[in-house]
């Protein structure tokens, strides 16, 4: 266990090395936050009352929380495992006397923790200053929110790890990358709260793992859902996706052919 904590700690510390990149990223998150919040405010002016239980204020906060969680959950473009498969470096990684899946998971948890501090919190603070976001005052609610973010990170990692493994069968992962971006953008709640969906699309969204990423933590913070029902769903998906990843790993190791020397 100690080795995994150490891995997470190192990966946590690593994230602080890129100060300029962090500032640049904060700027980009903020511009998107301002833009999307303005769009929703403009839309809410054309009607009165909340939409599917979301008031204008809550939706604007939703937009900023999503911008804050983007780098924490790191839903787009994580192909580190795929690259080790491509280069063949995975062979030496597999020889190490630690669990391959837990190794990457520990590193990702460390990464996410650091991103929560350097990207998530500042982005939310900027939104709070610019749009006077209203937050719950109960500290318990915040703890529940953080716990659901932690589980969201695990679901996000399990999903990313799984699609990285596809590289065992296809060397070019770009097509897969696009498909996963579509699924995540639409069904995680990144673009809009999933409860805005028409019934048939909401049914599909509820059957997929992606709502664990953005929608469930948001619902927990807004008090739209009991935290335990969110945790339950998230834990189910962590276990299911991790088990699937183990299964795929086993099959892949059997057919592992390494290029070059």
């Amino acid at each position, binding site marked *: 266990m100690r080795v995994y904590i150490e891995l997470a700690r190192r990966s946590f510390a690593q994230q602080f090395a890129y100060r300029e990149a962090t500032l640049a990223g904060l700027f980009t998150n903020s511009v998107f936050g301002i*833009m999307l919040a303005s769009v929703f405010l403009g839309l809410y002016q054309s009607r009165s009352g909340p939409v599917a239980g979301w008031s204008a204020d809550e939706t604007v906060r939703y937009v900023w929380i999503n911008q804050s969680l983007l780098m924490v959950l790191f839903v787009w473009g994580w192909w580190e495992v795929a690259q080790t498969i491509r280069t063949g470096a995975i062979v030496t990684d597999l020889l190490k006397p630690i669990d391959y899946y837990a190794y990457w998971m520990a590193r990702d948890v460390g990464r996410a923790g650091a991103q929560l501090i350097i990207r998530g919190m500042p982005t939310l603070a900027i939104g709070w200053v610019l749009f006077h976001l209203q937050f719950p005052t109960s500290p318990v609610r915040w703890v529940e929110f953080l716990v659901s973010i932690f589980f969201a990170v695990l679901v996000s990692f399990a999903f990313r790890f799984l699609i990285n493994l596809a590289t065992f069968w296809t060397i070019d992962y770009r097509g897969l990358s696009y498909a996963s*971006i579509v699924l995540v953008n639409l069904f995680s709640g990144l673009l809009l709260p999933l409860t805005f969906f028409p019934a048939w699309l909401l049914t599909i969204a509820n059957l997929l793992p992606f709502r664990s990423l953005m929608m469930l933590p948001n619902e927990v913070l807004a008090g739209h859902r009991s935290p335990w029902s969110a945790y339950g769903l998230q834990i189910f998906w962590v276990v299911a996706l991790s088990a699937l990843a183990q299964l795929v790993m086993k099959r892949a190791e059997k057919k592992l052919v390494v290029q070059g020397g």
Partner: protein
Amino acid sequence: MANFRELLSELAIAGRIARSRLQGQMQYRASFVLQIAGNFIINFAELLALIIMFQHFHHLGGWNIREVIFLYGLSATMFGLAQMIGSGLDQFPAQMRLGEFDRVLTRPLSTFIQASVTDISLRYFGQMLQGLVILGYAVFALDVHWTAAKLLLLFLSIFSGVVLFLSLFAIEAVLCFWTVESTEAINAFTYGGSDLAQYPLSIFDRWLRRLFLWLIPIGFVSYFPAVTILDKHDPLGFPAWTGFAAPLAAGLFALATGWLWGFGVRHYRSTGS
């Protein structure tokens, strides 16, 4: 005139390089088809989100769903086309780091053309195509009263948008002469700019409008032409001919970018590896 002929011959060479890149990509047919389809669908998810939003809201700053879809199609077309032409610029930082830019400097062809055609990505073809389909749908659904001037304006808008986004990609690339880390900030103007162009500019806050009009003239290439083509009322109070200023705004921006590019290239010091 000699300059012009030189430019034409350079563009012909660029075209030939681009064609060979495309042929290379066709070799991996399955991946290639997936990429085009993937890009086609990525934006479709965004469009679906937009349509869902308008199930709950009646209009956005006085623009109805079809009018917003028109803006969306316009933005997706110009951005997709610019990405297709300029996707090689994405690899510019890597070229720089590996010292490959030295080789570019020794060739008798514009450094900019060489950098942009190193990788013509057909995958963005899907995105541009999707933009065109959506634009076509919006034009059909909106029953626009076309005049020759409006048709011209539509072409000017797309052309200016491509020039503007290509310039932004070039700025992102040239910034790595000085910094590699902070280029992500440019995403706020490229991806952010193309997102912003999907909505009527009038709904945004004053300083965001100023940023996207006077520093990065995205409002000039998309919003004002759309106002004229769709006969919309512009609450910002700009004169009716503002849409026709699109090529001027994009041209000035491209000139400034060209200067920055030249400046960057002149100050280039090889990594020496």
